[in-house]
């Protein structure tokens, strides 16, 4: 039956119109036309501005008639649009009174905050037209992607091995050999590599539309153009970045990203997005008008009593996340990505900001975080907080979790780094970290802990063992930017070395890090390229570098095959042994009458760890009968860590009658005997003990002989 609302009721300059529907916000296809809906609490009137694609001047500006407004929402249907060739925006009239928080300026054309795709930066790095009166343009998007039977994978949190990557960095390097380097399509072509490595989740650094030219300038040091490369500065929350799609110039970035997600899912790999809701690309009072600033500045941004922008993000402005209107757009946005793109999880950049009230104070019960935790559409999505912000809030262990939120465990990173470099006084701390940090997440379980030793912020793993200090000169800020507390150790020489001794310690240290990370309770996260010793030449803050400092060099797969093989095997080992993937904390007690605690602690003497401050050694044993709280039976596992500069003999705990120790990993041994294939581990000659070389990790499997 034909619908009554398929017919126009109004006309403006030859365009046929009808009062629109406030819901859903944004631009939506309806029979015969497009429904445009946008809201503003303080605007007095609104005009829809339509462009033919790419043209400098608008084709028409249609004011929202009085009867097209319900509450604070302007809604109108425009009929007969050639939707592939339309770009749209709005002008808003309202007060300009910065002291009161209002910055309306009807001379600006504003992007729809709900734009599902955005043009203007279609091809990465292509210099934009700086004179464009409307540089980031909202596009209309089909939402009819054919998913077949795909849906988010729902891999249990404890079973994940996360791989953090930047879309462009992953395949932009000429050595990647993909047809469309640096794009979503490029990742798709490299899925076999991800499978070979064995990770089952990729976490994409920002893919919301951002402007790589934001604050771009030429480095006085290197002469290279520095860019907003990482993209932690959102232009549009609902739109994938066009310049990360090979088909972006055709406006097909939405389909390209969905096709990537679908193909990753088909290969058992989940997709997380790193989302930046703490601030936008509009900067402070000196920044550009893109969208929110001109639509409803006072609602969207946290403002000082004088009307200036709070800067808890360190980037100029702070999104007013606990204003009910802003809360809703964040929720709408995440629901959109979860339902339309089948995204499996989200990592929230500087998430502590999301828990501040409109005047900046931390809330004990932040409504936004609660809404996200209890939302039905997001119910199975993983939610991960970077539990701090640039305003001094540090909430690792205390982030308002509602039983849902996990955290990037900064204490795992710091503790493991210090332990690895041989600092004293770390063994007690490490005992917590290895168990999934029960000191931080007592009631939340180990899956609240995202364990990592490196992430995009800071050194890569190779640089962690090759540099004592950051070397950020290429960023053009006189090496003043980036963190100073890297807890790194260069193994005796700053930077690349030809000394085989130094290089062998470095390789061993990287293996040690991988072995400890992947045998810890909690959820491990690996930084792209650490598996092949990717270097940033000591730069620990490459946010602006569109070059080989960030791009993964695929030739490393050849030169670093030993390290790659090590990673591959320890990842497989983790996934083969449920004992590493407990949903609940270990009790340090025997809960099943096995004669062993679920986890027991050892040192050079079995059952007698040295907890003293001078100790740099620790070993633990996991009892196979108590894997996953006794729900499944696994082998016994023994992990010994010698972070001392001398070798030490570790006495082994006795196994139950009939079981023997087999050696899976010894980072002190030369490749290929540093790690073994699962089920091909050789039996340990001396079942009573093992000598650990200096700075080495050993992993043993206790099982019945075949």
């Amino acid at each position, binding site marked *: 039956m034909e619908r009554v609302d398929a017919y126009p009721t109004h006309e403006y300059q030859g365009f046929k119109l009808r009062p629109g529907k406030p819901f859903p916000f944004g631009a939506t296809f309806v029979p015969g036309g497009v429904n445009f809906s946008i809201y503003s609490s303080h605007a007095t009137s609104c005009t829809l501005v339509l462009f033919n694609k790419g043209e400098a001047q608008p084709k028409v500006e249609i004011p929202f008639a009085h009867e097209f407004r319900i509450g604070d929402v302007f809604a109108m249907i425009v009929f007969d649009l*050639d*939707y*592939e*060739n339309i770009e749209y925006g709005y002008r808003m009239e309202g007060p300009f009174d910065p002291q009161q928080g209002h910055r309306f300026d009807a001379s600006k054309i504003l992007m729809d905050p709900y734009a599902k795709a955005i043009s203007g930066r279609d091809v990465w790095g292509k210099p934009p037209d700086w004179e464009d009166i409307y540089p980031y343009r909202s596009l209309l998007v*089909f939402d*009819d*992607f*054919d998913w077949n039977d795909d849906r988010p994978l729902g891999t249990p949190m404890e079973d994940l091995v996360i791989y953090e990557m930047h879309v462009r960095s992953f395949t932009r390097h000429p050595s990647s050999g993909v*047809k*469309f380097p640096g*794009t*979503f*399509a490029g990742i*798709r072509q490299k899925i076999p590599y991800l499978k070979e490595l064995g990770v089952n989740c990729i976490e994409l650094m920002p893919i919301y539309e951002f402007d790589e030219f934001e604050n771009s300038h030429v480095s006085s040091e290197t002469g290279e153009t520095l860019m907003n490369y990482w993209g932690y500065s959102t232009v549009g929350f609902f739109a994938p970045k066009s310049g990360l*799609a*090979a*088909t972006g110039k*055709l*406006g*097909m970035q939405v*389909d*390209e990203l*969905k*096709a990537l997600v*679908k*193909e990753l899912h088909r290969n058992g790999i989940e997709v997380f997005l790193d989302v930046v809701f703490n601030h936008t690309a509009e900067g402070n009072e000196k920044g550009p008008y893109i969208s929110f600033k001109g639509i409803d500045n006072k609602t969207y941004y946290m403002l000082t009593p004088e009307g200036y922008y709070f800067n808890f993000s360190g980037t100029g402005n702070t999104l007013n996340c606990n204003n009910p209107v802003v809360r809703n757009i964040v929720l709408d946005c995440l629901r959109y990505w979860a339902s339309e793109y089948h995204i499996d999880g989200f990592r929230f950049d500087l998430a502590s900001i999301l828990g501040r009230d409109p005047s900046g104070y931390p809330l004990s019960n932040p409504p936004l975080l609660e809404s996200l935790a209890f939302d039905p559409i997001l119910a199975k999505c993983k939610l991960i907080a970077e539990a701090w912000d640039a305003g001094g809030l540090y909430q690792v262990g205390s982030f308002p979790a509602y039983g849902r939120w996990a955290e990037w465990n900064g204490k795992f990173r710091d503790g493991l780094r210090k332990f690895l470099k041989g600092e004293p006084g770390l063994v007690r701390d490490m005992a917590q970290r290895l168990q999934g940090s029960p000191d931080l997440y007592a009631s939340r379980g180990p899956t609240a802990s995202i364990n990592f030793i490196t992430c995009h912020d800071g050194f890569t793993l190779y640089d962690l063992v090759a540099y004592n200090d950051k070397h950020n000169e290429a960023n053009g800020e006189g090496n003043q930017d980036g963190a100073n507390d890297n807890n790194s150790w260069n193994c005796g020489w700053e930077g690349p070395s030809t000394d085989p001794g130094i290089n062998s310690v470095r390789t061993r240290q990287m293996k040690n890090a991988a072995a400890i990370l992947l045998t810890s309770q909690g959820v491990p996260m690996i930084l792209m390229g650490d598996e092949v010793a990717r270097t940033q030449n000591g730069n620990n803050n490459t946010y602006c570098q569109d070059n080989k400092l960030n791009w993964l060099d695929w030739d490393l797969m050849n030169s670093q095959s030993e390290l790659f093989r090590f990673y591959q095997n320890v990842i497989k080992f983790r996934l083969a042994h449920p004992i590493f993937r407990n949903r609940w904390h270990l009790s340090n007690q025997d809960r099943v009458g096995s004669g062993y605690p679920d986890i027991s602690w050892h040192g050079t003497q079995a059952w007698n760890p040295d907890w003293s401050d001078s100790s740099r050694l620790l070993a633990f044993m996991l009892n196979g009968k108590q894997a996953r709280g006794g729900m499944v039976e696994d082998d016994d596992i023994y992990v010994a860590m010698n972070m001392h500069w001398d070798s030490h003999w570790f006495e082994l705990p006795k196994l139950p009658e009939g079981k023997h120790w087999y050696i899976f990993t010894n980072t002190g041994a030369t490749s290929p005997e540093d790690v073994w294939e699962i089920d091909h581990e050789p039996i340990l000659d001396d079942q009573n003990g093992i000598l650990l070389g200096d700075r080495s990790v050993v992993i043993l499997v206790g099982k019945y002989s075949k």
Partner: protein
Amino acid sequence: MEVIRSMIQDVNVVKLVGDLDGSTAPNVQAEVMLLAVPNVKMILDMSEVSFMSSAGLRMLLVLYRTIISKNGKVILVGLSEDIRDTMSMTGFLDFFTYLQTLDDGLTALSS
């Protein structure tokens, strides 16, 4: 956009000439959909399609879904490298059988 139809044995061969985009796709769809009778065998010859937009891709997929639902078969032939890449990256190619030439298509449908 031109649609050239012919029958070769029992196969409907539809040759599209020109750009397949938002302005041409609806008409092409209306015309080609008439051929989507039960058990139809169809070849879409794309060798003279110079550009395909999002709307063009969607038209192809709707046609595919219709033909499959009627136990028919459809094969694409003559895709340019550009269009094949676009279709591949956006996931549309996954649905289709595509072959190099019209003869390849005819052979496949006759076997």
